[in-house]
Every structure is written in structure tokens, then in C-alpha cells.
């Protein structure tokens, strides 16, 4: 039953399966609606208003889903800083989920801003407001998505190039790869520092809103809580993607890798809960959790969704059975996403009589961007060697030594 994942393979399956076509279709619809949004005002197609001027796109696709996209960062920290070598075979999957998670966020952000043409001024440092947390997030997230994540995702593509019959391409792939090998520590450190910066800053974003965010969530510790939650959700996302892939494509089940990942995730979650409750009691806001108004109920639901799975996953038996591992991780991811989403929307109270519920147009666009990520994932794992496999599944032609180190 248990197998050891050793290195990455390309799935030899036809690309145009029914799920792929469905996801691609939803993605296409989302993008079409996005184009339509560009020629109308935001008000016609979304539920956004002057009270809740940030909605699904920023608060869900950016703030919540990029945390889910922190898997590449989180697992790489385990592999390279904590020297857990066993995680190397799943790095490619992890960095791919990151690229796609951030991709959906950046895409949503592009359609969400009202005056995107003024983005050109980002090129002129004189217009930068260094005090703006949003500026930090914008620059740092863009740099991470446009540079660091792409470089991290290069090795499978280089392998692909290397396999071509054109000697020029082969040579190019090797040259780039050697350069990457030489500069690897310097590059990967950038890919650690950038997400640490913007994932914590996503929390600081809401700190500026001051008393408009309910005291159960509003705290100067938001940056730390958001950063820790990015780790937790990053682990959860990689776990869920690997579990689903292993199930769908019969990759075997590496109990050691997945179990260890779940264990680290649940310990991180306990640290997160400790920080959260210490902060709440330090600020004297803990009593608000038991008033049973809507905020208290959000808080309790959120905490239960995070606490129970993390306790369950401390039990070896729960971690080792694929079914329970998947279910608990899924619940924890829901709780984590709930936490990242709440301060921006559910616990946010503008002055005056404003209501926000995303329009169906908005929801379709948001789902479309996520479906795009899934479709690209399906394309990528069938084109490049990304998913991990055990020795028995590795065909001779997959043994591409030169690129194995990344």
C-alpha cells in the first residue's frame, strides 16, 4: 500500500478529457465576462458599493486564495531551511500550485482595479508611496509572481526543452539550468523573503481600516496571523492537490511525505491558535467571542474549523488513512480561508447602511479564474514532469538526470 515518491513524472494521458474541457469552458466564460466588465463600469456587473468597495475579487481571490497559493513557499521552507529532504519530490507540485494560486489572484486584481491603465506609473519610483501597505503588496506580489515563481517553475520546462531534438534548444536548456544551479541559494532566498513580506502585509492592509474591522479580528498581530495562515493554507493546498492527484491518476500514496506534511501543518495551526488567543486575551477581546452575535458565531465557526482538524491530524491513525487525511485537511483549509476572508468582508463594517453580496456575474468571474488555474494544472501535469511518483511508475525515459536536482 505505502509507496515512496522519488521523483517527478509526466502523466501520459490525453489532455482533452471531460474535466479539462469543463474547467477550460468555465475559465473561458470567466475571462469573457472579465472582458465585458472592462467595457462597462464595475457597478453594473458586481455587487460592490461605496461601503463595501472590496469584494470577492480582492478579498477572496487575492487575500484568501494567494494564501492557498503559498504552498511552494511553505514546503520549500521545510525542505531547505528545516532540511526535510523527503519533501524534494513534491517541490514541483508545490511551486506549480503557487504559480496558479497567485495567478488567479493577479488576474482578479487586474479586472478589479478601476483604472488599470495607470499601472504604467508603477515603473516610475517617484510615484511610489513607500508608506502604503498596498504598494508593498502590489510590488512584492508582482515581483514574486512575475519573477521568482516563474524561475522556480522553470526546471520542468527546461527538461521539456532538453528533450527536443534541436541541439540549440538542448544547449540553451542546459545553460539556463547550470546558471540556476550556480545561483540557486540566492534565488530561492528571494522566493522566501518576498512572500513573507506580502503575505504578512495582506494582514496589515486591514489594520489601516482601524475600528471598521471587528475587534475579534482587528489587531496589530494581523501580519503575523496572516503569515502563519499562509503557511498553513500552503501546506493544506499541496496536501489536497497531491491527495486528489494520487487518487485520480493512481500515483500511489507516500504516507511519509503526506503524513509529515499534515503533522507540520497541524503544529503550525496550534501555534497560530496560541498566538490568536494570546492576542485576544491580551487585548481583552476574548469576551466578545461568547456574545453569540453574528461576529461571535463567525469567530466560533472559524475557530472550530481550524482547531478540530488540527487536533485530529495530530493522531497518527487519522494522518495515515488517506480518506481521513483528506477530509480533515479540507476542513482546515475551509477554516483557514474563512479566517483570511473574514476581516476584509464579514467583520468589516462601514459607516452607514451598506450591504454587499457578490453578484452572480462576480461569482462566475471568480470561479472562472479558479477554473483557469485547474485547467492549467491539468495541462501542466500532462505536459511536464511535475507530479511525484514511486520508482515503479518512473519510466526509463523520465530518468532525466541533469535536471533532477530541481
Amino acid at each position, binding site marked *: 500500500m505505502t509507496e515512496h515518491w522519488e521523483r517527478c513524472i509526466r502523466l501520459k494521458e490525453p489532455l482533452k478529457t471531460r474535466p479539462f474541457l469543463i474547467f477550460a469552458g468555465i475559465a473561458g466564460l470567466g475571462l469573457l465576462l472579465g472582458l465585458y466588465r472592462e467595457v462597462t463600469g464595475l457597478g*453594473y456587473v458586481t455587487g460592490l458599493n461605496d461601503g463595501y468597495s472590496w469584494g470577492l475579487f480582492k478579498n477572496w481571490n487575492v487575500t484568501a486564495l494567494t494564501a492557498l497559493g503559498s504552498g511552494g513557499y511553505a514546503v520549500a521552507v521545510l525542505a531547505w*531551511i528545516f532540511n526535510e*529532504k523527503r519533501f524534494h519530490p513534491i517541490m514541483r507540485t508545490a511551486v506549480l500550485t503557487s504559480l496558479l494560486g497567485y495567478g488567479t489572484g493577479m488576474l482578479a486584481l487586474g479586472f478589479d482595479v478601476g483604472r488599470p491603465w495607470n499601472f504604467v506609473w508603477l515603473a516610475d519610483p517617484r510615484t511610489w508611496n513607500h508608506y502604503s501597505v*498596498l504598494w508593498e503588496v502590489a510590488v512584492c506580489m508582482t515581483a514574486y509572481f512575475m519573477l521568482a515563481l516563474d524561475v522556480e517553475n522553470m526546471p520542468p520546462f527546461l527538461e521539456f526543452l532538453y528533450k527536443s531534438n534541436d541541439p540549440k534548444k538542448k544547449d540553451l536548456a542546459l545553460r539556463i539550468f547550470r546558471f540556476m544551479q550556480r545561483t*540557486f541559494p540566492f534565488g530561492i532566498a528571494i522566493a522566501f*523573503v518576498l512572500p513573507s513580506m506580502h503575505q504578512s502585509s495582506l494582514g*496589515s492592509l486591514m489594520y489601516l481600516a482601524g*475600528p471598521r474591522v471587528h475587534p475579534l479580528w482587528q489587531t496589530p498581530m494581523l501580519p503575523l496571523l496572516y503569515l502563519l495562515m499562509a503557511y498553513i493554507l500552503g501546506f493544506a493546498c499541496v496536501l489536497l492537490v497531491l491527495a486528489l492527484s494520487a487518487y485520480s491518476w493512481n500515483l500511489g500514496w507516500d504516507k511519509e511525505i503526506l503524513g509529515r506534511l499534515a503533522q507540520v501543518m497541524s503544529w503550525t495551526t496550534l501555534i497560530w491558535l496560541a498566538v490568536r488567543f494570546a492576542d485576544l486575551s491580551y487585548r481583552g477581546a476574548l469576551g466578545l467571542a461568547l456574545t453569540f452575535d453574528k461576529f461571535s458565531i463567525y469567530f466560533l465557526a472559524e475557530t472550530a474549523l481550524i482547531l478540530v482538524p488540527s487536533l485530529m491530524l495530530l493522531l497518527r491513525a487519522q494522518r495515515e488513512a488517506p480518506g481521513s487525511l483528506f477530509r480533515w485537511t479540507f476542513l482546515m483549509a475551509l477554516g483557514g480561508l474563512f479566517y483570511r476572508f473574514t476581516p476584509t468582508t464579514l467583520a468589516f463594517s462601514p459607516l452607514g447602511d451598506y450591504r454587499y453580496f457578490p453578484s452572480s456575474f462576480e461569482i462566475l468571474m471568480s470561479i472562472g479564474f479558479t477554473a483557469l488555474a485547474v485547467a492549467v494544472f491539468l495541462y501542466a501535469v500532462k505536459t511536464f514532469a511535475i507530479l511525484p511518483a514511486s520508482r515503479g511508475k518512473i519510466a526509463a525515459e523520465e530518468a532525466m538526470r541533469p535536471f533532477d536536482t530541481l
Partner: protein
Amino acid sequence: MDANRREILKALMGGSAVAALATTGLPLATQAKPEKFELEPDALGLLYDATKCIGCRACMPACQNANGLAADVGGSGGLYMQPDTLNAHTKNLIKLYVAADGHERSFMKQQCMHCVDPACVSGCPMEALHKEPHGVVGWSSTLCIGCRYCQVACPFNIPKFEWDKVNPKIVKCELCRHIVGSTATEPACTKVCPTHAVIYGKRSDLLAEAKRRIKEKPGFYFEDRVYGEFEAGGTQCLVLSHVDYSNLGLPKLGKESPAAQTRKVSDFVYRGFLTPVVVYGGIVAIVRNRWKEHLEHAGHSDSGETHGEEKRA
């Protein structure tokens, strides 16, 4: 052990140097920028005394005309100007507050408070929202990306967005900065106010005037204080009323501006960008050793075929 430590230190310094080179521009630029968080001595503002306001709303069409805004006739079925909130057509609104018992009532002039240290300016990534001379909070269409963080940040819920436009603007009071000093000597609203319920001038003068009025009639104004003297770090538009300010849509706010609080957290973490540089250096130092090991390991397993067993042992 010793050699190892020296190596880490060396790598740390090397890594820091690279990172410092890459980012020198950032901390320097941050320091060179003039601090605009403090009250300018010649800051301009308004003083609105709700007890003098008769609710004639003359300031509203005056504001629309001066700013070239279309009248918002939505609330009246198209008959006359009747906005119910500040919106993309309304920068200035007179509202009436009536207490549940019907006895206590007060008008309120809702508009941008022109904070001394505004959350919108602090949050705006591109300096589209910025402090003009005399501390007036202005907006610039050539820099705004339409992210609407100003709307999320503003504790008074003031900036409004043109939701129905493809080329949307942020709409908020800019103290008639486009006409004051050229074709006008004061904003449109103060010019037309028949009872001088709203007056224009230097904030220091307005604050002194407000305090004079409080002193003249002790116990008349709410808690004998001016709203905006200290709230959210102080605002340049000040409000006087005899009813609880929180009933007028003026929230209870601390003396420290949310912008200053956020800067404090950022400064604590970033230490003028020192933290990321040091962390970068540290990571480079650690990963360099791991990477060497990793390459050696890969090279070893190339010849022997004990890759998996070794790893799990």
C-alpha cells in the same frame, strides 16, 4: 564547527551585500521623503457648527456647481436634488439627525474631514491621494489605479467611486482647491452659507474660534469639545454640535491616526528594510550549505543506485 560558523557568517555578509545593493534605493528614498504626517502651521480647514445650521442646503448646489457635478435627483423621483448619502455625484451633504424620542435633533454637514494624517493618503499605493499645500487632501486622476483602498481605509467613509463609469474617478471634497486662490477666495459651501454655520480658514484660527464658542456657552456643546481636534490624529475640518457626535456619523476614534498605528507596526517589523535584508542573508547562508549537500547527494546517486534507500534510512 568553527569553520562552519565562519562560513555561515561569510555567506551571511555576502548575501546581505547583494540584497543591500538591490534595495539601497528603497530605504534611502523612504528617509529622503519629507514627513507629511504632522499638522502644517498654515493648514486650512472648515468649522461647521451644527447649532447654527438651519438646514437650507444652499451649500449643496453650490458645491455641485463649483465642482461641475450633476445633481443627484434619485431620492426625489427626478424632481430636485435629493441625495441620501455621499456618492459619486455628491461631495457635500447636509443630513438631519432626529433622536428616537423626537426631541433631540441636529444637522450634520458630511464631507471629507481633511485629516492631518489621513488613512487614505497613507494607504494610496501611488500617491494619487496626497496632501496638497495647506494640508488639503487632494486626488489626482493621472496616478489613481482605482484600487479603492482609500474607501476601505477612511474611518469616515468619505471617498466615493464612480461605479457606473469605465473611466471611474474617486470623488471627495478637495476644499475647492481648483478655484480657491484663482477665481474664488473660499470654498463654495462657506461662501453661500447664510448663517455662517460653516466657515473657512486656518485650522488654528478655527480651533480657537470653536473653543471660544464653547467657553462662551459652557455645557451647550456636546461634552464641551470640538470633534476633530484629536480624533484620528486630528482633522482639519472641525465640527461642533450639541448632540453626541457618534449620532452624526462621526465615529469615536482614538488620538492616534490609524495611519500612524499602521506605520508603527510596519516600522517594528521592517526596521527601515533592515529585516528583509538580514533575513535574506540568513536564508542564503543556510541554503548554500544545504544546496551543496543536495548536489553532492544527487551526484552520488547518479553512479550508485541507492537513491531512495539512503534518503529514507
